[in-house]
């Protein structure tokens, strides 16, 4: 009996030791960010080079379709986090910060904070900008013969019932409202987007769908729709895959940025290695590599010098003066009011 007890004890001790060493050896960092082409390209441009440089750290990419789902998962794990790092939209990150999900972001996490553009550092959010994206005009090159240069092409009667617009509450719709408001003479979108809404009322009858699926890029590439709006980075990647069918334009009136931030989860299992990854993700090299790969504009001001002219041209980096400065935390406060305007005044005109 005693022999058996001893054997059990020895076995348990061995098991405990094995577990302890495996925990110490395999430093696994779990990163959550968007699934699909973002994951594909981010792993190639940033995660793999990082693991090559740090053979003792494994980065596991846990893809989720959108920021809301990431917040939901992080919320559910709040008492025992399994995820170390999240890359998500800045307004969702604000909600996560308010709920105490992110650890503070400062020089102890990354030494690159000082080099980031001011737009990448948002007051009240415990995460910093890792990618900038912007709204662009998309068109099908078979149906729209001459490349449009202005957002006004969407209002062109010849594309009636062929316009594809992801409506609010999607933030592509929100960004578009702010751009339209400025084009229609609005001066302060936080106070009122009345001018923009009135202009959108004129667009409504021409719209084919307010809910393009699986996303806005596929129907325009395939010719189901002729013209629409979408995000630059994804549009650039899909344009390359579309045999020239998908055209992408940053219109002359300018556009607005969408910001993805990177944050450290409070109490995540791999704290030190996670900090190392965040530091790498914000470094000029990683930022430049991801811009070359997927055409998100870099958030580190020192990255631009490392990026090829060809890739820079396909981001908004060359047109910074034309970009509308969108304060997403302020927009979050008026988002519901904008949604209500769309539902009461804009979308009903397209029925």
């Amino acid at each position, binding site marked *: 009996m005693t022999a058996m007890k001893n054997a059990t004890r020895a076995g348990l001790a061995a098991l405990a030791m094995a577990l302890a060493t495996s925990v110490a050896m395999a430093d696994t960092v779990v990163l959550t960010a968007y699934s699909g082409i973002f994951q594909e390209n981010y792993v190639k441009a940033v995660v793999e080079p990082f693991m090559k440089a740090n053979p003792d750290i494994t980065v596991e990419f846990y893809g989720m379709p959108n920021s809301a789902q990431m917040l939901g998962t992080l919320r559910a794990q709040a008492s025992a986090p399994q995820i170390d790092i999240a890359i998500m939209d800045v307004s969702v990150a604000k909600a996560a910060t308010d709920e105490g999900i992110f650890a503070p972001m400062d020089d102890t996490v990354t030494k690159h904070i000082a080099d980031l553009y001011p737009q990448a550092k948002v007051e009240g959010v415990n995460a910093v900008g890792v990618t900038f994206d912007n709204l662009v005009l998309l068109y099908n090159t078979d149906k729209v013969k001459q490349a449009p240069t202005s957002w006004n092409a969407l209002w062109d009667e010849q594309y009636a019932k062929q316009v594809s617009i992801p409506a609010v509450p999607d933030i592509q719709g929100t960004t578009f409202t702010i751009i339209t408001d400025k084009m229609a003479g609005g001066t302060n979108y936080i106070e009122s987007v009345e001018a923009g809404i009135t202009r959108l009322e004129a667009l409504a009858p021409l719209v084919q769908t307010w809910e393009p699926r699986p996303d806005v890029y596929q129907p325009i590439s395939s010719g189901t729709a002729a013209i629409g709006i979408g995000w630059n980075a994804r549009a650039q990647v899909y344009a390359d895959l579309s045999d020239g069918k998908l055209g992408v334009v940053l219109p002359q009136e300018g556009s607005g940025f969408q910001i993805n931030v990177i944050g450290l989860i409070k109490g995540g299992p791999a704290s030190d290695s996670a900090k190392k990854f965040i530091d790498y993700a914000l470094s000029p090299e990683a930022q430049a590599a991801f811009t070359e790969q997927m055409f998100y504009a870099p958030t580190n001001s020192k990255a631009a010098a490392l990026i090829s002219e060809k890739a820079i041209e396909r981001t908004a980096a060359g047109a910074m003066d034309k970009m509308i400065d969108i304060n997403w935390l302020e927009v979050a406060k008026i988002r519901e009011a904008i949604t209500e305007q769309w539902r009461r005044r804009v979308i009903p005109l*397209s029925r």
Partner: protein
Amino acid sequence: MSAVPALPRPARQWRDGELAVLLLLPIALINAIGFILPVLNLARYSFNKSRIGGGMEAVFTWENWAGLLSDPFYLELVFNSVWISLAITLTTLVVSYPIALYLHRASGSWRTFLTVLVISPLLTSAVVRTYGWIAILTDDGPVVSAIKAVGLPAPSLMFNIKGVFIGLTEILMPYMILALMAGFGRLDPRVEEAARTLGATPARTFTKVILPLTLPGIALGCLLCFVLAVSSFITPKLMGGGRVFLLATEIYDQAIVTLNWPLASTLSILVLIVFGAALWAYSAVLRRLD
């Protein structure tokens, strides 16, 4: 007097009630953990406060419920969801009933073959079938082209309520047919024969004999399809073009896009109330049939 040898003690007898409780316990536990707890959690969330930008504050407020009841948009949403689902259920019933009746009368391998044919759409996900409908119903699709070819004015069948209607009806048909067939048990062919022998016309046989005997199946199929129609959001999302606002699509938007979980929970509880009403109507119909 010799001692009476002790009889072996009889095995413990289960009383009826005890056995039933014991057998029901596992499923009751699973339901409690997998269904009742989450629903209670949802109910709790519906009294939380939503913060700007998607945060949630665990307090107790009637704000969400008050907002829901006072905003005409949400009342319209409930009204729309209920009438659209009822209309879809009725259409599904009308197109499925003849098929179910034919299947009920068929026999042998022919019946098996047809049943497999009816069930086979369920082997493909509703998302795939919805994309199929999009290809068929778009403005350059075969249906609209055929209507144009005949010289009629082409209706827009996609990205509006018509698309949602057509798509959901087809998707719900297998469920309706199976429910109808399950409820056709009381329909004995000899009763129909008797009616015909006694001189009833086919129409009279249908209205006086077949229809009343199949009412339990109709009630079951309608309940099932109504519940599925109210809760479906993929088809309305894909085929509605953002113009069709229903309870289920709104819950998706509030939960996933605007991150207003308290409001999404409130709407979910509202859907449960609608389901409760449907169940009540169903049992009322069954009581009257008995």
